[in-house]
Every structure is written in structure tokens, then in C-alpha cells.
């Protein structure tokens, strides 16, 4: 995990050096509701809520919006049965989106571009457990609106839909023991497209710019994704996040 974080931060720092526009370092804290159905292990839907936190980096300009962020999430999930035992969930998400200005209409600026997303989800209890990982490329549409140049509020909405993914899921049988040397034999690596991998990610929020150049952003984010081959899994997340944006350039 440390290695992954280091790589992501390095990427962010490299990009920050390239950009010449307004640049912000971001720290976020929020609350997220998580629902999952991992059909191979259980016919039941597990759900729960927990705290999500993260950090990121964004570059804002007239023509280009770049955004990197890494989020962690942890919660105890339960199914709806009376004897349900806690199912611990730990998740990590990273996304790098880059969108370009298309046009403006009635004060609304429209952008389109691409996003790279990384998603890890680990779930487990004493008796059952599972995981999913996916690296996906998504098309992103974004719109921003400011009532007037002097208004401190900027409102934004983004929608992204992945068109290609590489995912990893445990194969049909036990994840434990299946080792030869140090290589796990039972992990399946899948190159996927819609509908075997499908997702939708909606973000709606408002940013309030302070006089000193820093800002606060208030976001709602709803996500759904599914990985169908081998062990079908469907995940729905939904939550709010407050982000402090520190102007660094």
C-alpha cells in the first residue's frame, strides 16, 4: 500500500510541476454508504457506512481541469439477516482525470476528457471474505458554473463511464493455500469491457473560494460498478465529502 501511495504521489508531484495554472493540494473527509453483492460467496446484500478520507491535487484553468485524488474508506458491513456478523470492508480508490474545455453556454462551461481509475475493495469476516481490484479508463463529462467572476461559489457536476478495465478477482475456488512458491495460482486477471465491467460515477458539488486563494469544496459522489465474469460482484457507493483546497501555485 505504501508503494502504491508513493507512486501516486510522485505522479501528482510530477504533473504539478508541469502545470502553470492554479494548483491546489486537497485534503478531504467524508462519509460514505457502501453496498455490495458478491454473488459467489453470499446471496445476501451487505451494506454499511463509514468514514472516508483522502488527498489529492487539482489544476484549474480556463481550458483544462486536471484532478488526482486518492481515497480510503473503512466500514463494518452487515446483511439484513438477524444473525448477521460484521463484515469488515476496506477500500482504496485513485483517480486521475483530465478534461478539456469544449464550449460555454449561458455561463456553464462544458468539458470532456478521460480518467484513469484504480479501485481496490477488500471485504472479510472470520468465515468469509473476498476482494476485487480494477484499473479502468473512463470517458468524463464535466460542467462548471459561476454566476459571475466575483462570486465565490463555483458549482460543478461530472459524469464518468468506463469503457475499458483490467480487473482481478479470485477464481472459482479457495483463495487460501493455492500457492506455488510465491505465486498465487487462483487469482484471475481479466481485460473487460461493457457490460462485463460497467460502472457509472457521478459527482456533484460546489466550491467556495476564499479571498486568500484557498477553497473548500462540498461534494456528493455516487458510484456503481460491476465485474461479472468468474465471481460476479456489484458495488454501489454513495456519500458526501468536504475537501480543503490549499493553493500551492
Amino acid at each position, binding site marked *: 500500500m505504501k508503494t502504491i501511495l508513493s507512486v501516486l504521489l510522485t505522479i501528482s508531484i510530477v504533473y504539478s510541476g508541469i502545470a502553470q495554472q492554479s494548483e491546489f493540494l486537497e485534503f478531504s473527509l467524508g462519509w460514505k454508504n457502501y453496498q455490495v453483492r458478491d454473488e459467489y460467496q453470499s*446471496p445476501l*446484500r451487505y451494506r454499511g457506512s463509514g468514514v472516508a478520507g483522502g488527498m489529492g491535487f487539482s489544476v484549474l484553468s480556463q481550458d483544462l481541469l486536471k484532478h488526482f485524488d486518492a481515497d480510503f474508506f473503512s466500514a463494518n458491513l452487515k446483511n439484513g439477516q438477524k444473525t448477521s456478523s460484521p463484515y469488515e470492508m476496506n477500500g482504496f480508490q485513485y483517480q486521475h482525470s483530465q478534461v478539456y474545455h469544449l464550449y460555454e453556454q449561458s455561463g456553464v462551461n462544458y468539458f470532456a476528457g478521460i480518467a484513469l481509475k484504480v479501485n481496490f475493495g477488500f471485504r472479510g469476516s472470520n*468465515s468469509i471474505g473476498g476482494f476485487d481490484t480494477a484499473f479502468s479508463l473512463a470517458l468524463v463529462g464535466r460542467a462548471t*458554473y459561476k*454566476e459571475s467572476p466575483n462570486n465565490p461559489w463555483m*458549482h460543478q457536476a461530472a459524469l464518468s463511464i468506463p469503457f475499458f478495465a483490467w480487473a482481478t478477482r479470485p*477464481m*472459482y475456488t479457495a483463495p487460501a493455500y493455492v500457492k506455488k512458491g510465491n505465486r498465487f495460482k487462483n487469482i484471475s486477471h481479466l481485460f473487460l469491457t461493457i457490460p462485463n465491467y460497467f460502472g457509472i460515477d457521478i459527482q456533484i458539488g460546489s466550491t467556495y473560494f476564499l479571498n486568500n486563494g484557498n477553497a473548500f469544496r462540498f461534494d456528493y459522489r455516487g458510484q456503481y460498478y460491476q465485474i461479472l465474469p468468474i465471481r460476479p460482484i456489484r458495488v454501489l457507493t454513495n456519500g458526501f465529502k468536504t475537501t480543503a483546497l490549499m493553493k500551492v501555485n
Partner: protein
Amino acid sequence: MKIAIKTTWILGISFLFFSSCGRLILGADPEPTPMIVFDDLAYNIETRYSLFKDKGVDWQAITTEYREKINPDMGDDSLFQVLNAMLGELKDGHVNLSYIKDRGRNWSWKLDYPENFNYSIVERNYLGRNHRITQSFENTIIDSIGYIYYGSFSKTIKKKALNAMMDYMKDTKGLIIDIRNNGGGKLNNCGLLASYFTDTINDCMEFLYKSGPGPDDFDGPFAYEIKPSDTLNYTKPVVVLMNRSSFSGATFFPAMMSTFPNVTLMGDTSGGGGGIPFSFELPNGWVYRCSVSITTDCSGRNIEFGVLPDIKVDLDPKDEAKGIDTMIERALAELR
């Protein structure tokens, strides 16, 4: 200001929409009626269990018989009894059904056989008051012969601890590894411990993994390889003591050790448990597990039914009454 109010509304509506449509998007849970629970278990065992052919079990006939015992008004306790009895037909120690009151099992693989173990005798008359407890290994040296009692493979072995114990044992004439009443645990522990008793690379077992719902959907075979320990290789004579309660990991371990020329397996046939278990959940939240693999030893024999000893020895009740462990005595005699 108007746009801020609008945005707040949109956020609120989006949140409520997504929160409430979890059931719609992810699908509703199945109704946990006795018949739906039964059918879920019956189907998933049929498609996931790996040892039907080896055990000659006609699962269709079994499920037909037990389905007649299901009625819509039966309570949890009655349903548990029927499902547990059905799973018991598999005669597999790695098949269990658990709910809040009980963990169902069929332990005929050990209870139908002599116990062949009395820990009190081992502790008082062989390990003694001052024996070492190195992690999970209780060990001592008896007349220049090392004796290790290892009661569970569950706790991850620390290599430093194992090195320390093997260093203590390195000058002995021979070694007894007693895994009687060891109910198993982590396969990695078996491989790690075995790696100290060979100086060559060995393919000691092969695994086949259930890879799909069909009866012949298996992946493999995958060889399980043991590399010699890089710390110490004990190639002097070793006796592994086992009984019918040496189950799962304690069946994998003698299967691995049997490939080494310096090792003798002694006692009773091990309890088996060669199918690696995996756990699942039923529509009512109960958890069950079943074997999802097949393991064969280097001679191609399925170790689900246990590993055979090279020398068959039982605990003699007359010796036991005198505080003598017949099996340890036989092992000591073999190594002297």
C-alpha cells in the same frame, strides 16, 4: 444564492435516490424460506464440492431424500438438523454448517477409530516439567532423541522460533514429530516445517481446484513444491507420529514428509481432510463450508482419506494404564 439552494436540492435528492435504490440496483435478497435455503445449499454443494466422485456420493439422490423433510413452517432448529444431516452424508470433516447455536459436523473420520493419544501421559512422562515451549511446539530431548509435540498448524510459525528449535535439535540422533490430535491449520506452516527435513527440492503433492459448476470442472494439477530450508536441513532419521485426529494440515504434513527418505510415518492412518475448505453463506445468513479441491500425494493417492503409516502402531491400553505411550516408545526404539 438560488443556484446554491438548487445544488443542495440536487445533492439531497441524489443521495436519497442512490441510498434507496440499493435493492433495485444490486437486487433483492432471496426470501429465506426453508425451501429456498435448502435449494441454495443443495445447488451450491452440487456445483462446488470437489469430492463426489472420489467418495461415490450420489448427491441428487441425497437431496431428493432430504427435500421431503423440508416444510414451510419448520423452525431454525429443525431446518438446521435436516441440512446438517444432509451435509453429514458427505462424511467430510471440512464440511460444516454453522448458526448461532451450533456448528454442524460429521466427525466419524475420528470418532469411529481408537483415540491413540493421551496428552496427560505425554506431558507428565515424556515432555516433563521443564520442556521447552517454542511458539506452538512443545519440545524436549529424550536420551539424545528429540521429541516435538505439535498440536495445531493454526498459528503462523515464526521462522526465528523454528530456527531456534531446530538448532536445539540439530545434534540429536533422531527426531520424533508428534502430530496426534492436531486438527490442522495453515498449509504454509506444513510446508515451512517440512522444509527443514530435506536437502533437495521436492514436488510432494498435487492439487486440483474446482473451477466451475460442472462435475469435471477442475483446474490443475498444480504441484506443491517444498524447497529445503536455507537455515538447517535435518536429514537424520525422523519419525512422524499420527492418529485419526491428525486432520487437514496434519494430513498434508505427513503427505509431504513421506517423500523424504529419512522419514518414517508411524501410528494410525491420519484423519484425512485433503480437500481444501472454503466458506459460503446461505440466504438466511448461516455459513457453511465445503471442500473445493482434491489433493493427491506423490504416489497419486487422494489424501482425503488419510495418509497411511509406514509402521502401524496403536496405543496399548495396558501400557496407557502404566503411564506409557506405546507409540512414542516404538518411535524411540526405531531411532535408537
